[in-house]
């Protein structure tokens, strides 16, 4: 295949690019103590929460943005960002889908995720975050029966302050890094999940995040706690409308798994990546960390990352418990001018702790991608084991793939394996499929999906289908 055809193949329009016109209640750009007090007040937060935010803010002021990532972007003007945006009259939030703004429902339709259908057919509870305020929550009653709390973080701060106080910031401290500190100061919403001892959450929990108001950074804060022998599977899916200005996104996700608990966290991310020149895409600086606090606890991260102009994201596990398990399965696709520096950290502290990392990177167009992973084995983590497999697939000859594996082994009984491959999408593979009557576009998607199989099979069934579709859309583009 000629290289210009290859180029055409990977060029595509952002299909989920549209803007919903809902009046926003937005603060003027800028960040100071007043902004933080405004957010806290808007959320009806108690005094301790405001103090927590302000402490984080002061830590942030003393920090500098990280520069070690393999990313290239202009400095961000944090005073040019508006830190709060909510649909008007948040106190009049709809209680059911019937009360939801039809335009919002239309938005979901365009995304191909008809909320009512999804919820009903798939039995998925959806806590839809539209801009910064949760507008609808379903299946709450069924969850309540099981004793599961699933609500917005703001609601949790008001209704379950003891739980929030006990766990918030214990996995990702406010001073952890520049973006985590910023998030701690200004987070506006996100999800809270609490699964009590011995309970297996009766359904997949899912939240669709959207960024909608122009020029408004979105700062979610998610906290998921599984007590002993509790289990939950959580899916986060994101899309965003087409924009001219860069949108900063700095989320923090904290997971806590106590003894024998299991948390499965899956992400499908499809934010606006910018236009052909890389203009206007989302900047995604995320801190995600799970704490396997209890013995035999298990945390599994699965991510399918296809969007954003810049991705800086390392979902990690602290394997504190004895025989605890950490897993990271990732598919990252970059196209156009996208840049991604992503990977994971597995911190082995507990004896017999195990971790697996399977990372699949697909670079197309002029994009650049780096896998950055740390496997750290502490002195007391006797017999700890890690397996890392990290494969890169290049489409065309204008893109780049880089691998930065770090290993810090503090224990001679540990077993750490690392495998890495880089390959170009095979013209022979394409020819083989095409000579069976399969179109070039279908052949590319078939080969790429095959490459990602190991990761997709970790996704909950219905989302695996969605992820494959998303991949096809991402790599879709005018053949011929």
């Amino acid at each position, binding site marked *: 295949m000629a290289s210009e055809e290859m180029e055409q193949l990977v060029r595509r329009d952002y299909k989920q690019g549209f803007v919903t016109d809902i009046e926003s209640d937005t603060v003027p750009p800028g960040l100071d103590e007043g902004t933080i007090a405004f957010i806290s007040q808007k959320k009806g937060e108690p005094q301790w929460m405001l103090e927590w935010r302000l402490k984080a803010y002061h830590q942030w002021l003393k920090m500098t943005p990280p520069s070690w990532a393999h990313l290239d972007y202009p400095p961000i003007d944090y005073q040019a960002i508006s830190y709060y945006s909510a649909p008007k009259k948040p106190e009049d939030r709809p209680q059911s889908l019937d009360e939801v703004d039809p335009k919002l429902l239309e938005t979901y339709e365009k995304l191909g995720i008809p909320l009512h259908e999804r919820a009903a057919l798939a039995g998925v509870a959806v806590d839809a975050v539209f801009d910064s305020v949760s507008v609808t929550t379903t299946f709450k009653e069924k969850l309540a029966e099981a004793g599961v709390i699933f609500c917005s973080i703001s609601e949790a701060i008001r209704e379950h302050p003891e739980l929030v106080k006990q766990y918030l910031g214990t996995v990702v401290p406010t001073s952890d890094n520049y973006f985590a500190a910023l998030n701690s100061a200004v987070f506006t919403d996100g999800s809270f999940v609490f699964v009590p001892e011995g309970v297996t959450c009766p359904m997949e929990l899912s939240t669709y995040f959207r960024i909608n108001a122009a020029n408004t950074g979105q700062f979610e804060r998610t906290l998921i706690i599984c007590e002993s022998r509790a289990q939950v599977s959580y899916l986060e899916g994101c899309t965003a409308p087409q924009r001219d200005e860069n949108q900063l996104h700095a989320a923090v996700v904290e997971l806590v798994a106590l003894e024998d608990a299991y948390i499965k966290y899956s992400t499908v991310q499809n934010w606006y990546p910018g236009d052909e020149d890389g203009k206007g895409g989302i900047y995604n600086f995320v801190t995600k960390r799970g704490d396997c606090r209890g013995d035999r606890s298990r945390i599994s991260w699965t991510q399918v990352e296809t969007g954003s102009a810049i991705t800086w994201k390392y979902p990690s596990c602290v394997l504190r418990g004895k025989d605890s398990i950490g897993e990271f399965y990732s598919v990252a696709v970059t196209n156009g001018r996208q840049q991604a520096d992503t990977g994971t950290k597995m911190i082995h502290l507990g004896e017999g702790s195990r971790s697996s990392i399977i990372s699949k990177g697909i670079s197309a167009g002029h994009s650049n991608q780096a896998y950055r992973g740390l496997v750290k084995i502490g002195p007391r983590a006797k017999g700890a084991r890690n397996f890392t497999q990290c494969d890169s697939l290049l489409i065309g000859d204008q893109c780049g793939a880089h691998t930065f594996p770090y290993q810090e082994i503090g224990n001679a009984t540990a077993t750490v394996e690392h495998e890495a491959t880089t390959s170009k999408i095979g013209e022979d*593979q394409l020819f083989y499929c095409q000579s*069976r009557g399969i179109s070039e576009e279908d052949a590319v998607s078939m*080969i790429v999906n095959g490459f990602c199989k190991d990761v997709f099979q970790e996704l909950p069934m219905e989302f695996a289908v969605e992820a494959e579709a998303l991949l096809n859309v991402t790599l879709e583009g005018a053949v011929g």
Partner: protein
Amino acid sequence: MLEVKDLHVTVEGKHILKGLNLTVAAGQVHAIMGPNGAGKSTLSAVIAGKEGYEVTQGSITFDGQDVLEMEIEERARAGLLLGFQYPVEIPGVKNIYLLKAALNAKREAEGLGEIPAPEFMKLIKEKIAFMKMDASFLQRAVNEGFSGGEKKRNEILQMLVLQPKLALLDEIDSGLDIDAMKVVADGVNSLRAADRAILMVTHYQRLLDHITPDVVHVLVDGRIVKSGDAELAKELEARGYDWVLEESAA
């Protein structure tokens, strides 16, 4: 069915085919033999539409259509199917998935809908049994970790499922032990039909012990220099290619 006229092909500037003429009629099995480097694989690659082969002169028509104007996948959908000498591995893509996608692409081109799942399974079961393949093949990734013999069986399996009008077989016998050769040959023979043609490219006579061709062509230095019946292949096996060269030069 297939008509190749005065075909000239260059690969990376090198003149490989130099005025090749070939006519294959429906219902016939043709074998093209020749020494290494004569252009045998180039011919099958050009007919299937592989990139990197430049046709500088001549034409290829298939059922009256100009093959050189067709995309690779259009050729396949029209019933022109290439069995590879070295089938490529496609990790993570299940065999059954490729078969279904290929069959549905063909059906779509023919104005038929997607094949219903039960019908497809019935068809596949029948064909893999014929090729003496285990059902687990279907769930394995395309050609991944297959032995040489398994890959070739898989190529023929695809032919049996896709039922081409013209089956192009490129060195389908290479790397086969005698048992596998028998199974592959049975598969090819089962494809023989009044409305179908088979064009085999092979280096060795032994394949032709199992699949008797109607016509044998000798390809030397980019041209077909001699054609005959199955006896010609035996003569080539016994005497080599030199005498043909001398004869054609004379």
